[in-house]
């Protein structure tokens, strides 16, 4: 599967770099088309949709050393989402995933499923992307995650899943703030995002006080719209991204928990287009870099996803 993803990413990268046919859309629109599912572009008032993602866990980092997994796991995720605009500068959205896991050992195969963690998001646009000749687009985001999924502790308590395939959430109340800066130059766009998240401490089953580590994430995306007559606005929106996410060590009763620092470095590509004025389809692929120090204490692997979005305009 990793080879397919790498081939897909290579083709998309070459297409984005070399394709020079004129696109109907401007780059300022393209930056929002290839962002997360709850991001609305300037003319849109609301959006709703579903994304279907599949991810194979082909390796894991033991501390910072990468090891291939002999029995890869698979995660399927269908995320339902909606977003709407509040005035010119604000947009809010929510996502809720349904998760199915396949876990495997030398002797057992186990499937588990359930609802994942609900996420609520808000975005404030200080400077609209592409509007100013002097300033890049600047936006701020806020996000909260509610533990609606089944946490590892709940899975153990439930006791029906030996390989914990029924774990569908982190079990944490978390909140985060972020900033996005978007540059438009000629027909290209460049996006820099940074965000930090903190989760509330809790008391575990052993009556010990657990303080989850802060999480930070940085993302750099580059893309451009290219001409594609098949699509409604004759444009294919292309982007490629690199993301680093880092989770600091958690503490249990003020002691640092061993192997609780996490890091993951991911490359991804996105390609999407409007099938009609109101329906947008995006294909995306991701690949966690399996090199030493690119990750830490995390399972990693390639993933693919399909996003279908219904967008609404003032009518």
């Amino acid at each position, binding site marked *: 599967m990793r080879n397919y993803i790498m081939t897909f990413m290579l083709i998309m990268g070459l297409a984005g770099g070399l394709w020079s046919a004129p696109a109907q859309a401007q780059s300022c629109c393209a930056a929002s088309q290839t962002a997360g599912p709850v991001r609305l572009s300037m003319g849109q008032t609301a959006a709703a949709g579903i994304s279907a993602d599949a991810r194979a866990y082909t390796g894991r980092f033991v501390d910072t050393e990468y090891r291939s997994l002999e029995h890869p796991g698979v995660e399927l995720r269908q995320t339902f989402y909606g977003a709407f605009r509040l005035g010119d500068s604000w947009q809010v959205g929510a996502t809720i995933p349904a998760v199915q896991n396949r876990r495997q050992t030398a002797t057992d195969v186990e499937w588990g499923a359930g609802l994942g963690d609900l996420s609520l998001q808000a975005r404030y646009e200080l400077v609209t992307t592409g509007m100013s*000749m002097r300033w890049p687009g600047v936006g701020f985001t806020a996000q909260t995650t509610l533990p609606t999924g089944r946490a590892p502790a709940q899975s153990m308590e439930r006791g029906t899943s030996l390989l914990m395939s029924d774990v569908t959430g982190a079990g944490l109340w978390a909140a985060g703030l972020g900033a996005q800066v978007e540059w438009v130059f000629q027909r290209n766009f460049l996006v820099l995002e940074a965000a930090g998240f903190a989760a509330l401490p809790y008391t575990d089953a052993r009556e010990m006080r657990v303080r989850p580590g802060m999480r930070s994430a940085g993302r750099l995306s580059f893309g451009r719209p290219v001409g594609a007559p098949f699509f409604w606005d004759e444009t294919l929106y292309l982007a490629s991204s690199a993301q680093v996410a880092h989770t600091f060590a958690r503490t249990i009763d003020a002691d640092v928990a061993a192997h609780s620092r996490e890091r993951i470095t991911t490359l991804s590509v996105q390609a999407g287009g409007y099938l009609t004025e109101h329906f947008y389809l995006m294909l995306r692929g991701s690949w966690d870099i399996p090199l030493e120090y690119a990750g830490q204490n995390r399972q990693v692997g390639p993933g693919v996803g399909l996003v279908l979005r219904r967008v609404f*305009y003032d009518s």
Partner: protein
Amino acid sequence: MTAKPSVLLFSALAALTLAFTVGPTTAQATSSLDDVPDLQLAYGDGDAAHSPGLAADGQLRVYWFWSAHSPCSKNAEPSIEALQNAHLDVEVIVVHSNADQSASDAEDAGEERDFSFAVYRDEGAQLAIALNATMTPEVVVVDDSQIIYRGRPISISRRGTQSFVEEAVVAWKSSAEPDTDSRRPTGCVIRRP
């Protein structure tokens, strides 16, 4: 897990976010048209300059924000001509505001596509800023006392073209209540200096 304080804390955070969210979205600054310098004719037949302002008594004026290079704006050009032809008594001022383009871009586009309408250059996008026009195509329709419609001028779909601006004009002429006095514009951003 101690759920109760967590629920309280996150409820407070959500309420704060919502309050912060809804509050600042209602205000929308619109500066006075009197401060906007005259627009200069960039293409077509018409007065050499246009002084932005409200329409004459009992009249309507449409400011149609247009870009030389925006595909969305280009797709809407037939609707400008259709509006002018259908309502000869309505003054349609096509405004070219994009700061990343020049007056000669408007002239070149006009000659290449043989417009029947004149195009006025809004140097420094000052009219766009004053009327808070953000995209092309976008219209601001004014009578002798106020803005009667602003935003998206038309909708083009596979079923055809629906002209919201013409609906607003027809409603005003017949003294009927329009469906709405604003629609969020779609298209390409007007770049400001």
